[in-house]
């Protein structure tokens, strides 16, 4: 009963969103409406209401964030908006808050581990880079990414050769995906700023 009511309401919402998407002509408005359509699709999955829903939502979120990033980059290149903006807003909060705030977020993300912890820690790192500025130290991120690959392959061999230590392998793989997601997400934070490369 609850499932049927939810399904009817969500189809109504999808109809409204796609009607707006059809009527829209500006490209940036269409990009924003794509985000709305992603949220509505996730509601459709969440209505399944078992552990299967949770297992389906996580890949949906991964695909959604990568889609938004790729489409926004394509849009920026297509509209020739590649140079930095002139007026960058500075808030008073951005001098005092980010150190403690992003420290808490990164610590909590490391405790969670996996893609969830990587996204949370990546948000903290983006916040820190956005507020404090950055000095183009990409080689650290590349090194971390290489170690993450090594950890991943080590976890794979543990699964294959000594399966009785599976918990150790799960922990190594979780740490590796945390490193990789956090490094990739922190690259986004360096894209906004006053220093032109």
């Amino acid at each position, binding site marked *: 009963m609850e499932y049927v009511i939810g399904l009817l309401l969500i189809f109504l919402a999808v109809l409204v969103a796609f009607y707006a998407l059809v009527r829209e002509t500006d490209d940036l*408005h269409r*990009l924003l409406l794509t985000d*709305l359509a992603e949220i509505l699709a996730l*509601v459709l999955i969440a209505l399944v209401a078992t552990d299967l829903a949770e297992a389906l939502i*996580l890949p949906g979120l991964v695909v959604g964030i990568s889609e938004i990033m790729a489409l926004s980059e394509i849009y*920026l290149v297509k509209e020739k908006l590649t140079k930095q*903006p002139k007026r960058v807003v500075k808030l008073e909060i951005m001098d005092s808050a980010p150190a403690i705030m992003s420290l808490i977020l990164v610590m909590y993300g490391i405790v969670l581990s996996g893609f969830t912890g990587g*996204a949370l820690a990546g948000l903290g790192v983006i916040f820190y880079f956005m507020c404090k500025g950055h000095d183009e130290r990409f080689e650290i991120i590349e090194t971390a990414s290489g170690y993450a690959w090594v950890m991943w392959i080590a976890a794979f061999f543990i699964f294959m050769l000594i399966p009785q230590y599976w918990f150790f392998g799960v922990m190594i793989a979780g740490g590796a995906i945390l490193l990789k997601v956090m490094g990739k997400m922190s690259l986004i*934070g360096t894209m906004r700023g006053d220093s032109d490369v």
Partner: protein
Amino acid sequence: MTPEFLLGFIILLIGTVSAAFPKPKTWLNRLINIEIAAWGLMLIMLSYNESLAILTFVAVTGISTFVLVRVIERRSDI
């Protein structure tokens, strides 16, 4: 029919309608109205006890908001 389910659908419908037809049609208004729909989705996930999905969804919403803000900032600068 838990209270979270009902509340989540009310907020989701408010957010969807207001994001589809924002009143002063600017990019900023539409971005903020999408946040309302995101809160509705979070409450619906809560009513089905999908806690890990909520955590990931909240973090991903923050990151995608930053990506969209970067696009809007450069677009409205010219």
